[in-house]
Structures are given as C-alpha cells and as structure tokens.
C-alpha cells in the first residue's frame, strides 16, 4: 500500500543516496565540460582564458580524429561479432555432457581474470612477436614468412586480443541462458522434425536473444573505452592506425599536456558513447521488455 505519505517518506529516505550519486557523476562531468572550454596547456602556465568551442574545433579538425572514430567503431563491432559468435558456439559446446566438465568451464572463464595489460603483453610477446612468438614459430615451421601482426594488422591484432578477454564473459552469460531453455521445448521441436540447424535457428537463437542483447550492451560500454591493450601493444600506431578515441584523448591531453583539448575529446567520447547506446537500445532494446 503505497500511500501518498509513505511515498513521500520513501523519497526522503533515498534522497541522500541520490544526491551523492548525482554529485559523483555531475561534478566530474561539469569540470570536464568547463575545462573543455579553456585554453589550458600545462606546458604554458599562466592564465587559462575562456576560448569557447575552439578546443572542439581543434579536436574535430585533427586529421587523426576521423581515423580514431572509425577505429573505435571497428574495434567495438569486431570484438562484438567475435565474442557473440564465439560465445554462442562455446556455450553450445560447454552445454554438452562431457568428461571433466567442471575443469573445462573453469578454463574457459580464466581469461576474464587476467589483467588487460598482462594479457595484451602476453599476446604481444608470446604469440604475435614475429621473432619470439608462437605464431611466428608456427609460420616458420611451415616455411612461411612470419606475419608481423602488430605492424601489418595492428587494429585486427587488438581486436583479437580484446576478443580473447571478453569471450569468457559472453560465453558465461550465453551458457546460463542456454541452460535455462526447457528441454521439453527442444524435445517438442525434435518430434516436430527439426534437425540441429532448425532447432538452433528457431528455438535456441530466439531464446538467447535477450542474453545476446545484454552481452552486446554491457560489452559496448566497456569496449568504447579500450585503452590499456593499445598502450602496451601498438601505442596507437603505426601512425594512428590503431588509435581509438580514448587513446586519442590520451595523446592529446597527456602526451601534449593539453588539458583543454583532452577534455573536449572526453566530451566527444561521451557523446559518441551515448549515440551508440541510444542506437543499440532502439535496435535491440525491445528484446529486453516483454
């Protein structure tokens, strides 16, 4: 019974939490917005005059900006495709009865516990390095020229590394979703004459739609701000071939000590993230209700 009274009381009770939360988000955001309108370079101390949207103009006209924007979207999209596709396949496999099920599941989850910097370094030095790496070794074993992963296909290499990290997450969520599918539904489909392909397409995939949506939404939020993996592997290069927006902001603000320009980049990144989020919600969010 939510009377007028109890509702007012409830609002009063949760208000401290709401206020703290608002401050927590609003203050940094407001400061970022404020800094983004100042000429504020740490190499040129002195007055920090208000310059309006000049920082934004700089950021947008930076030749690296378009590349970074495209790279960001490619990175997010590429990792999503690999992790969702691979996650479904792995979840289907792990759902089968097999020997050593517990151990196998633990192993599949393991990459999630490895720090991004560490896993990126492991990939860079132990797998992708043309001289010392495993891939180079395999290539040489077949008498082929080792592929220079991080210089020849820097963005793709990073997509691979990040996918490896996020595959366990997708697999885990999709596995629990598959396990929640009633076996009678699958049996009914089997009696109705559905083979594996039809069962997957018409029963399992629709059942997974909601879980896939969750995976995509959560991963997108994190993938838009990939940073450590780029820093320790390619450093955004060669040139800006593997620079995403987060990394561009880092180059601008920290490497060039330009707080104003960096803040402007941060704001652009926020706006982009929100556009992507709205777009995603529109496109697949309808899976979440009903």
């Amino acid at each position: 019974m939510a009377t007028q009274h109890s509702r007012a009381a409830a609002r009063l009770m949760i208000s401290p939490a709401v206020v703290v939360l608002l401050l927590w988000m609003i203050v940094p955001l407001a400061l970022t917005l404020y800094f983004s309108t100042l000429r504020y370079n740490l190499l040129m101390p002195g007055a920090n005059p208000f310059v309006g949207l000049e920082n934004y103009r700089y950021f947008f006209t930076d030749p690296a900006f378009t590349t970074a924007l495209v790279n960001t979207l490619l990175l997010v999209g590429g990792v999503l495709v690999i992790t969702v596709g691979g996650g479904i396949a792995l979840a289907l496999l792990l759902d089968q009865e097999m020997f050593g099920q517990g151990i196998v599941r633990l192993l599949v989850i393991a990459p999630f516990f490895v720090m991004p910097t560490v896993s990126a370094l492991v990939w860079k030095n132990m797998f992708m390095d043309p001289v010392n790496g495993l891939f180079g070794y395999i290539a040489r074993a077949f008498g082929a020229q080792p592929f220079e992963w991080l210089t020849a296909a820097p963005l793709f290499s990073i997509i691979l590394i990040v996918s490896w990290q996020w595959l366990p997450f997708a697999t885990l969520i999709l596995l629990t979703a598959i396990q929640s599918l009633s076996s009678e539904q699958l049996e009914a489909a089997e009696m109705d004459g559905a083979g594996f392909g039809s069962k997957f397409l018409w029963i399992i995939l629709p059942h997974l739609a909601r879980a896939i949506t969750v995976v995509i939404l959560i991963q997108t939020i994190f993938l838009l701000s990939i940073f450590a993996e780029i820093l320790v592997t390619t450093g955004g290069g060669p040139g800006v071939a593997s620079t995403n927006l987060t990394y561009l902001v880092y180059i601008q603000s920290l490497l060039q000590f330009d707080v104003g320009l960096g803040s402007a980049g941060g704001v652009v990144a926020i706006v982009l993230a929100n556009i992507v989020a709205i777009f995603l919600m529109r496109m697949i969010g309808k899976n979440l209700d009903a």
Partner: protein
Amino acid sequence: MGRIVLNGVRKAFGEVEVIPPLDLTIEDGEFVVFVGPSGCGKSTLLRLIAGLEDVTGGEISIDGRDATELPPAKRGLAMVFQSYALYPHMSVRKNIAFPMRMAGLPEGEQKRRIEAAAKALNLTDYLDRRPGQLSGGQRQRVAIGRAIVREPSAFLFDEPLSNLDAALRVGMRMEIGELHKSLATTMVYVTHDQVEAMTMADKIVVLRAGRIEQVGTPLELYRTPHNLFVAGFIGSPTMNLIGGAEAERHGARTIGVRPEHIASGSPDGAPWVGTVGLSEHLGSDTFLYVHGTGLAETVTVRADGEVPLRHGDRVGLTPNPDRIHRFDAEGSRL
C-alpha cells in the same frame, strides 16, 4: 494406422532399471491410458515409444515397421507435453505451423490445416497471439493443435491436464475424448489420476515400478482387479481392504469390498457393526467413514445421498457377497 507393439522393451538409467522387460500391444484407434503412482515409469515408457529415450533392450514396432532405431520425427507420432512446450517467441499460428514447416508442406496446405485445427479447438481468435498471452487451457489446445496438424498415426499425451485447475480439467478431458472419437487415431495417454484413466480409456495399463500390473478395459479393472495394487488403485473412494479373521472366513489372506458394495442399515443382525466417524454429504451420495468395526481402521461406505446417519451413530454394514474380492498372501486374486 497406429498399431504400436512393444516387445521385451527394457530401460535402465545407468545401473537403475526403471522399466524391466515389458510386452504391450496398442491396437489401432485405441485410447490407451498408462496409469500408476508418480515415479513408476509412465513418462519413461511414453518417451521410449516417442523415441526421446533409447531403449536398453527389446523392440518397438509401429504399424508393423521396426521403429526401435528410428529418430522421433520419423516415427509419425505426435506428443503433447505436460508443460505444453510451446515455442514462446512464436505466435500461435507459427507454433501450429512449425511441424508442417519442418516437413516442408506447401503453404496452402499449411494454411488449410491450421484453420481446420483452430476451428476444431476454438483457437481462431487467438492465432496471432503469443503463448504467453493465453490461459492454461488455451495453451493446452495450442499444443494439441500442433500435434493434430501433423496428422500422426498416434498421439502421445504426458499428463496433459495436470497443470489445469479442476473445472478446466473436466472440460479438457471431454474435449480430448471427443477429439479421439472424431479423429479415430490411436492415443496413448499418461496420467497418475485414476479418474482420468477410468473416464477416458478404452484400455488401461496399470503400472507399478515399471511393471505392468494389469491391462484391461476400465470395467474389467474395476470388476476383477488381478491384485491388491490394482484393487487399491482403481476406484474412488478406494476399496476397503480387510485382513485377519474376517478374510480367513472367506478363505483368503485379504478381502476387498468397494464402498458402493456395502449396504448400511440398522445394527441389529448386520454382519459388521460400527460407529460413523465422518459423513460426507455430496448430495447424490453420502460417504460414511465407519470406525470400530474390528475389521480395519476405517471402513468406507457409499450410501444414499439423503441417508439420515450422523457422526457417532451406530450403523450395521452388509457387504454384497458377490462383490467380495479375495486375495492370497502374495496379493494376487484368488
């Protein structure tokens, strides 16, 4: 079309033998009910017939063809599950169309069959809804519709009514019965409810721990139960089972008398005398639970609806001598 023969069919899950070797013939067009207590292997037996479980031994033939190794879809049987097992993201129309789409039937034929099924099952107004928007009874009908359109040689039902409330259950029972009359297709129906078994079946198969205790028409089981288990399981209220001196007087270890075969009257000169404990007045009948007869804890008697007996009244009971069932020490009928 629709004769199913089980020959020495056996099923074990690991070490546990759930169905010992079992023979059974289901004639074409028959309505056969598997009945037995929970966990006795009814569902397992049905799933063996459906092909959802592999037999551990023995053969299953359908219409004279060996079907033991056939996959479920190739057996030409349709199954209605206890949970209905509808596809939640498809409309009712698509649910019903699914088996036909899998079989690659032409669109026109699909449409014709869907409409016929929807009409027969009163689903025409709900074809574009999702299963989540339907009541339990409607979902049940969709599940039946999905089975009908396949035009199977036999229908398999696994406790299809146990998720419905009592009133709806009676209604659906009649609908399924009428469906059987109009389609004249073999139906195999699993239930733990002996009332469903008695009212619907042409032939009842009573199961206990995977073993067939008796096969027969409802009246055969009612009149001549082969053993104590069947005697106690079939009939409502259950048969009075009496041991001791009274049974020995009839030359048996146990005797059984159904509540409706005991006459109640004045205590004077009656063979059994007791005190009425509880009396349930149903209008048409009264069930008397009589204590203190010295025969059993309680003797249940079905009396006239307006019998004037109350709690605490002394009552004389006279069993119909032609309707006393006698069982030996192993529980088999004498």
